[in-house]
């Protein structure tokens, strides 16, 4: 099968010509059923059939990556789930080729960089073209072109959303072809937090979550591993720590965590680990009671002991081997220092240093930051650290918002980077926040200066685990996380203009049903309270 692969710049020129010709005529209120909406796209009026035996043709220095090959296989499984025996489709093709000629028989994936390094700001842009192979068209079939394998993954997701099973012909069709899509994310950091301390989430469930994130082009799994309630992760340097797990069943080995990181990387998703110190750490003391101020007053971690910081250093050293992402979350929120005041040896230590409890809190956070930095990590901290002693934070610190709506505004004004997670909108455990509230909240609100805007690296929806275990976690996340995902991926103009009941809601219904069709138990879009069952019988698209 001969194929002329054009260099990137040729394709881009071609696309921009098409764009200027067609985009202007696109009806703004009838966006294509793609979620999140691509940066630029144009479509036509043709319907193309896709060969169930569609072959992958790769090019470029990174085309041969196993990440691309594995993603291709995953997506073919999703696209052709009604078409049986794809494994033996060679035979079927030989049989069918005489009768049926498919328009799309190959998927070309061009990846220019061979680097598979996945870090914050990795180039996720891609170009996707789908058109009939004929004399008029210089690009036959479907072509994804990207700088990195991760851009190619995003392109594959978009391609899969163009494909629809047609029940009358029993074949997979692409409507409104030819398609020309040029796409890239608005924000580099598009996160989802999971909490494995309040409830243990089995490895397979975390994988289901990660897989579902890739459908909405989210790219950071913020793993809030440990909290007061349980310490599920193995820490070889301090092997008693996971005695703080709920039970011997509810634990992750080092290898389990590495497997999650590997699985996420295959889908272009970084894993940012968190140990939340000094406040949310009571469970550490189950294995090492010395970390508690006293047996009767167990939180925050004992600020006076070198042992406390030795343990943090040990945990971070162990985690550094598992988590290659450059960001590491040190928590630092909701620190109630009463136990420090009320425990004799700590009180004496404070007096000896002439420290208030607030000074001690600052001392703790800054010392933990230095440990993270010494391990070549960039620290992320919850916003209280910034609001309490912002000017002392390491300048590399990324501040994560959750409480105050204008904290990012203040943090970026001081030159810090910021992640937006306003609890009123983007805390998924707040069940009374409907999809439109999630959709409408804007991370850059009130931030005018472009140099400040650049410091907002993105946002994150947070699935705190107090009432979310395996049985409800996915339906509490979806579909609302998708609303935030589009806010963070698509252009600000596209998500802010017009009536979202027309521009977004029909597509979100469609995307929710797509999640269901892929086995993800996304809840009805029109729920007033998240994760409620459907109110009565009806079509997926109408609920």
């Amino acid at each position, binding site marked *: 099968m001969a194929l002329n692969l054009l260099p990137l710049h040729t394709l881009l020129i071609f696309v921009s010509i098409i764009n200027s010709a067609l985009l202007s005529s696109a009806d703004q209120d009838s966006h294509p059923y793609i979620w999140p909406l691509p940066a630029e796209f144009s479509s036509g009026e043709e319907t193309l059939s896709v060969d169930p035996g569609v072959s992958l043709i790769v090019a470029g220095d990174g085309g041969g990556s196993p990440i691309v090959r594995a993603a291709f296989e995953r997506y073919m499984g999703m696209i052709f789930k009604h078409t049986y025996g794809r494994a033996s489709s060679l035979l079927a093709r030989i049989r069918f080729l005489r009768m049926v000629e498919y328009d799309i028989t190959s998927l070309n994936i061009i990846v220019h960089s061979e680097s598979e390094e996945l870090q914050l700001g990795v180039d996720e842009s891609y170009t996707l073209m789908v058109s009939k192979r004929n004399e008029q068209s210089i690009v036959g079939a479907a072509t994804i072109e990207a700088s990195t394998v991760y851009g190619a993954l995003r392109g594959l997701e978009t391609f899969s959303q163009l494909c629809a099973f047609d029940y009358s012909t029993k074949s997979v069709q692409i409507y409104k072809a030819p398609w020309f899509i040029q796409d890239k994310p608005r924000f580099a950091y598009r996160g989802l937090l999971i909490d494995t301390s309040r409830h243990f989430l089995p490895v397979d469930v975390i994988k289901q979550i990660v897989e579902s994130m890739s459908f909405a082009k989210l790219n950071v799994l913020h793993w809030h591993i440990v909290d007061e309630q349980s310490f599920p992760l193995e820490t070889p340097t301090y092997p008693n720590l996971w005695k703080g797990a709920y039970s011997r069943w509810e634990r992750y080995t080092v290898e389990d965590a590495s497997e999650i990181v590997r699985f996420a990387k295959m889908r272009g998703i970084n894993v940012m680990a968190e140990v939340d110190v000094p406040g949310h750490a009571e469970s550490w003391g189950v294995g090492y009671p010395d970390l508690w101020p006293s047996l009767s007053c167990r939180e925050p971690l004992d600020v006076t002991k070198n042992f406390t910081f030795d343990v943090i250093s040990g945990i971070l050293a162990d985690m550094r081997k598992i988590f290659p992402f450059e960001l590491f979350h040190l928590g630092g929120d909701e620190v109630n220092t009463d136990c420090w005041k009320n425990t004799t040896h700590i009180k004496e230590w404070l007096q000896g240093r002439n420290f208030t409890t607030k000074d001690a809190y600052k001392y703790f956070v800054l010392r933990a930051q230095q440990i993270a930095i010494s391990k070549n990590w960039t620290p992320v901290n919850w916003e209280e650290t910034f609001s309490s002693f912002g000017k002392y934070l390491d300048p590399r610190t990324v501040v994560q918002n959750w409480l105050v709506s204008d904290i990012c505004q203040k943090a970026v004004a001081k030159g810090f980077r910021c992640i937006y997670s306003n609890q009123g909108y983007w805390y998924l455990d707040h069940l009374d926040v409907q999809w439109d509230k999630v959709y409408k909240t804007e991370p850059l609100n009130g931030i005018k200066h472009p140099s400040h805007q650049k410091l907002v690296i993105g946002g994150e929806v947070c699935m705190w685990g107090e009432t979310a275990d395996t049985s409800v976690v996915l339906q509490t996340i979806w579909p609302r996380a998708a609303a935030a995902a589009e806010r963070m991926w698509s252009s600000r103009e596209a998500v802010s203009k017009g009536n979202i009941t027309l521009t977004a809601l029909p597509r979100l219904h469609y995307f929710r049903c797509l999640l269901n069709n892929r086995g993800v138990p996304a809840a009805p879009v029109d729920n007033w309270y998240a994760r409620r*069952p459907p109110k009565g019988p009806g079509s997926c698209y109408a609920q």
Partner: protein
Amino acid sequence: MRGGSSNIAGVLPLFMLFIAGTISAFEDIEKLRIWPLPAEVSRGGRRMRLSEDFKLVTEGSKYGDPSGILKEGFDRMLGVVRLSHVVSGDRNSSGSNGSALLQGLHVIISSSNDELEYGIDESYKLVVASGEKPSFAQLEAKSVYGALHGLQTFSQLCHFNMKKKVIEILMTPWTITDQPRFSYRGLLIDTSRHYLPLPVIKKVIESMTYAKLNVLHWHIVDTQSFPLEIPSYPKLWKGAYSSDQRYTFEDATEIVNYARRRGIHVLAEIDVPGHALSWGKGYPALWPSKNCQQPLDVSSDFTFKVIDGILSDFSKIFKFKFVHLGGDEVNTTCWSTTPRIAQWLKKHRKSEAEAYQYFVLRAQKIALSHGYEIINWEETFNNFGDKLSPKTVVHNWLDKGVVEKVTAAGLRCIVSNQDKWYLDHTDALWQMFYANEPLENITNPKQQSLVLGGEVCMWGENIDASDIEQTIWPRAAAAAERLWTPYAKLAKSPDQVTTRLAHFRCLLNQRGVAAAPLVGGGRAVPYGPGSCLAQ
């Protein structure tokens, strides 16, 4: 375990040294962590370690596994056993710590036939020895489907050792002899009130195997939508919610094959004449009139031609011995208020009740002509039980008292009393599911033998892809043990099995099934942070 299994030690003198004796105290049973509880179990106090290349061997088996049912089942079993943790420990060196290596599973099946027939022998015997030397576990079964149950039990014996990072079987040697109490252990799903995508149905089927359920009752069509392609009447699926909330004929075949390879029958239902409004979207002639659309027009031959077409198409893909013809909740008002039908009633001197009987019996005959035996909801029995074909199985759903009457009349029965076994009743707690005894008040052995089993029903009014798993599980598991385990070994009080069921629920979670907490009603969410085992 109230005596019973003392003979097992006798036939296995080699392992006598390690056998702690058959299990007698109830607390010991609860330590077994096997759900549903097997018929007979004995165990010891040693441990074995699964080798890295844990193998399936079938020497001496009469079953050639021509289509790979056993091999696939074995691979799935290993898959779920290895799902929850990365196995990275040293798995092959001989045990310095006293745990011997288990090299694989030796499966011996005595029947070469793998037709999944109703009432097929589902028994198995599983022996995990405990020697110093590497060895194979033994699984014997009459049919490959019995062997699949044995594989499920085996998977529940496996345990990930967090320190050594290997998979172990504790409390070896094990000898488990097992068979189901009832041959029909069903779960109903409803794809009319909400469409359930293919992957969701497959996941439900897969999860059924964990609890050894064996019949998926597929309530395909109802008033709201008609999602299935019927080649004989291609407009019927115009009654689907949308052009893509549909199942092709090939999809249905795929579901049946997927289930069959897991030992699960698919019972297809068309619920006539009452729950069939959606049929008329494609063929309005099936409605009494445009504004009175249900039940199906009893006066028209076309109605029965369509039923014949559907059942003819069914018979090509639904190979189960039974087909379900519904027959419940028939409100015949549209028949008497539609002049054409009122005239027909008058001409044939039929009351509405007689027309209902006529419809059901005529539909029964069509089903029989396609080689099916029939299942009907209990109203058909309550209204004209003596007229039903003797090949009818009456499906209870109202009051369980009907079971006694049905069996006294010599008909077979399936128990699904709604107060205890309707999963959409979220106020029915798992304890109620567990305690619901199909043979309650039935003492005559002949009548007992007419109770084929039971079924839990997941009606779909408030169930879609987002909440089906947690509404089914763990309550369906409570019923599954009632239907599988010998009566004498069932807990007299459900509270005695709480720990073991909690463990099974967490096992489902580990396997990626969204089973809900035990605490609270159906589909309850966790009330606060805590261990899976404690919620």
